[in-house]
């Protein structure tokens, strides 16, 4: 497999911390972004991303080179972020309404926007609403969303990263987007309208 990081990984395996430092420098933003995409908390994302690099350096002997180093690092980061997200309790607002989950997971709770669609939503407010809506998704769906929408990974790459079937990738992406749209609508945001 043609891995652009092969040389730095080999040196790192021999204990060259400087070489691994170059890998950290190359992938820090990427790992922070995917951690943030799952956790949606700056401090938690920073801690998780940094733990990922420390763990990756320790466990480098376990990296057999079956996949690219970048893919392996994605996998370590996703597993760490998903585990941490599961440990954290979700914040639920008091004026919330239950909505059953189509994939049979625990029900998500969506703030009720009984006043109907909002006429005007400021950009800052919209961003807060999108973030809240994403946080209501399960960690697995947040993970798949950040890999697809933010990192732009192909379905195959996501399947390899998360070690799941291609069909599962497709169904989870579809579900995550659909659920996000529904949650936003419940919050009074019509994605089609605000983007025009």
């Amino acid at each position: 497999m043609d891995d652009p990081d092969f040389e730095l990984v080999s040196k790192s395996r021999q204990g060259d911390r400087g070489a691994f430092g170059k890998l950290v420098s190359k992938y820090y933003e990427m790992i922070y972004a995917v951690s943030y995409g799952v956790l949606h908390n700056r401090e938690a994302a920073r801690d998780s991303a940094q733990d990922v690099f420390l763990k990756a350096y320790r466990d480098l002997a376990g990296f057999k080179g079956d996949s690219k180093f970048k893919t392996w690092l994605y996998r370590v980061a996703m597993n760490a972020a998903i585990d941490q997200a599961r440990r954290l309790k979700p914040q639920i607002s008091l004026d919330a309404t239950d909505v059953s989950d189509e994939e049979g997971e625990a029900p998500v709770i969506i703030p009720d926007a009984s006043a109907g669609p909002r006429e005007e939503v400021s950009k800052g407010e919209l961003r807060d609403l999108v973030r809240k809506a994403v946080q209501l998704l399960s960690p697995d769906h947040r993970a798949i969303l950040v890999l697809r929408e933010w990192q732009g990974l192909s379905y195959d790459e996501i399947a390899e990263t998360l070690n799941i079937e291609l069909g599962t990738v497709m169904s989870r992406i579809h579900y995550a987007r659909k659920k996000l749209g529904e949650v936003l609508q419940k919050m009074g945001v019509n994605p089609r309208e605000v983007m025009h």
Partner: protein
Amino acid sequence: MENENQPVSKLYKEMMTRDLREVDLAEEKRLFIARHFEEAPAFVFRPELLVPAGAFAFCALLLMRVWPLSAPLPAAPEQTARVAAEQASAAAPAAEAVPAEDPMAHRVSVERVSSDTGIPVVFQKTIDNSPVTIIWVIPRTDIVQGG
């Protein structure tokens, strides 16, 4: 399926772009790498060795008369010692002809130095015919760090 969800995707990307823009990742990254993955400095520049190395340099400078520690030795000891030795030799031929005041007579010859705690450094210099030998041990990193 992709087109249908385009507005949701755009909203998501916009939220992520703005959220990530607010974080100073460059500084965070620099500190993290400096703390955990900086290339090791050259041996003599390791922080744990700077104090003993500095003390060693200070002692060496001190003994090189930057800051004299003792009064200078008596002038022309060689001539006096030689004449005294000749006189002593004439008076008592069996006696040893070693001038008592010649500091070179007490010269220490260091052939081998070893230490379990670090790297020994030997400094030798003759100052005013007085041989000076300093043996300094730079502690090993693992011992300094308690590992």
